């Protein structure tokens, strides 16, 4: 699946001001519903995790192979090793979200910066950066990640997130570059140049406000694909062995034959959580996209 969102919508855009962006977002149903689900997942995981305490993650804290129960640590069942699925979930949700946050931040910041430089300054900088961007777009990054993760075994979640982020900048860079190329021909940028603003002032003062809602949509996109990548690595057995993530939960469930023992709660609960997380993020993305592309609003 070409996971990228089309970015070639280069329609003329009205000047978007910060308070209107906030207003549009708060009235956008997709954005609000998505954000509420996302924040709700995170807060309930943190709250329940705190209530249970770190002891709850211990192996053998509950009887093994228990199905979905009524209360306490057995609410969502247990594994063959007597681990509480509920306790694992309270650790896995924030960790998976952290992977997305760290990787998407690195990818969007680095990509956005390179795209700005490449698009605005052109010339030799652009020529070199363009080749670099195309190279990173052409390589299936999951393969490099597999190699790196296989070499550096025993990484923690933040380190894995950072490595995923190091491969997540190419799409934002190419997209921002295309945006900047089109924006810089607009009259208001020309006026800025003629009135003697420096390159930095134009980039920050004139281009950034227009790129921001758009970078936001891109950020969510990178967030989704980072969570996806981390889960994929985990299922291949390359995840963090120390900390729980949603992908890591699925890996252990598959590894201990949860499918064949009909312990459906073991694999289904992290799978369902991942699906809910993705749908929430996708709604947020659609909402942000409508702010960045006013034309989409009328269609929707």
């Amino acid at each position: 699946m070409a996971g990228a969102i089309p970015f070639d919508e280069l329609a003329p855009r009205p000047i978007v001001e910060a308070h209107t962006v906030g207003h549009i977002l708060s009235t956008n149903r997709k954005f609000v519903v998505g954000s509420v689900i996302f924040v709700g997942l995170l807060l309930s995981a943190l709250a329940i995790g705190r209530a249970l305490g770190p002891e709850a993650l211990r192996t053998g804290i509950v009887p093994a192979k228990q199905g979905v129960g009524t209360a306490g640590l057995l609410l969502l069942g247990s594994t063959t090793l007597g681990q509480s699925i509920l306790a694992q979930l309270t650790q896995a949700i924030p960790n998976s979200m952290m992977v997305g946050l760290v990787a998407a931040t690195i990818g969007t910041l680095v990509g956005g910066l390179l795209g700005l430089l490449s698009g605005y300054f052109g010339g030799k900088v652009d020529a070199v950066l363009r080749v670099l961007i195309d190279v990173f777009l052409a390589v299936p990054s999951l393969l490099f990640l597999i190699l790196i993760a296989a070499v550096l075994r025993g990484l923690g979640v933040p380190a894995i997130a950072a490595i995923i982020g190091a491969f997540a900048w190419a799409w934002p860079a190419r997209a921002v570059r295309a945006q900047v190329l089109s924006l810089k021909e607009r009259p208001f940028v020309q006026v800025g140049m003629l009135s003697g603003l420096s390159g930095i002032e134009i980039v920050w003062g004139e281009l950034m406000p227009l790129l921001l809602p758009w970078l936001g949509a891109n950020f969510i996109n990178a967030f989704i694909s980072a969570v996806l990548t981390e889960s994929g690595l985990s299922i291949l057995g390359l995840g963090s062995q120390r900390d729980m993530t949603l992908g890591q939960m699925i890996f252990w469930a598959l590894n201990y034959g949860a499918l064949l023992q009909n312990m459906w709660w073991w694999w289904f609960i992290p799978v369902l959580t991942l699906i809910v997380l993705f749908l929430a993020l996708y709604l947020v993305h659609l909402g942000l996209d409508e702010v960045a592309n006013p034309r989409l609003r009328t269609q929707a």
Partner: protein
Amino acid sequence: MATFWRYVLERLIICVATVAISVTVVFFAPRMVPGDPLGAITIKLAQMGGNRGADALIAAYKIRFGLDKSMGEQYVAYLRQLAQGDLGYSISSFPSTVGDLLAQAIPWTIGLMLVTTLISWTLGSILGGLVGWTGARSPALQALVPVALVLYTIPYYILAIVLSFLLAYVFPLLPRTGAFTLGTQPTLTLGFALDVAQHAALPALSIVLVSLGWWFLSMRSLVVSIKGEDFMTWAEAKGLPRPRIFWGYAFRNALLPQATGLALSLGHIIGGQLVTETIFGYPGLGYLIFNSIKSLDFPVIQGSILLIILSVAIINFVMDLVYPLIDPRIRYGAAGRA
């Protein structure tokens, strides 16, 4: 003509740079680990319980693999071997070379990928085209849109897990793992072919369903935007029959961007298939990589990754050269303005 050669040169530079960077990363990545690159072998030996004479063996290995030389010399030697297509020996299944293992795995991966991509792309394009064409006139077809959206959002491996549970455990109609029944010899008979098809059904279904959503959505929006073109109005004014307008005018014009998307997504398709193969124990490249990760078999991991990256880079290069020939609207210089 000058722009043509500039374009070819630029694409060539990108292709060569991709290959050079990949080859270099694949060489240096295992050597950046703190400690000895032979650590994997030592662990392997310790697991097998053979510690006697390990030091002597490792010293011999060091000379055998050239690890006593400087990094620069090793890199040159590695490039020379690579140029001869020599990927070295597998550690965990020692007498086999990496090349042998790859040769066994590749047909399964390519076969599965060709079949699933062809099915999902064709089916997704036709369905998406029809839904875009009929629009609000057919609520039944319109109901496919949210289904496609959900399929597109769901990660490929999640569908694989759910399917493997439903079809192989709850309703055990299809074999869950492997590419053919264990113990049978691969032969060119109808029975064996059926066996292979049966084993491939589950992984294929999970890949087709997930990628279908994307092709459906992109074809639908392409056809919707083509509906507004002048030549469509003209075709209608001429009184052409509607099927003719759809297939000959709308569908045909949407096919090229759709084909472009297919080529561009090749890397993603391979990446997604690696995990799916692992879940179904399908003996292709993905499963080979998974097993070599488990047994710390670095030469095999490196070899498979190099092979995939090289093929993707070369296919991309060829595609870049072929597009402008198919579609005159894509000019050779246009890539620079992206």
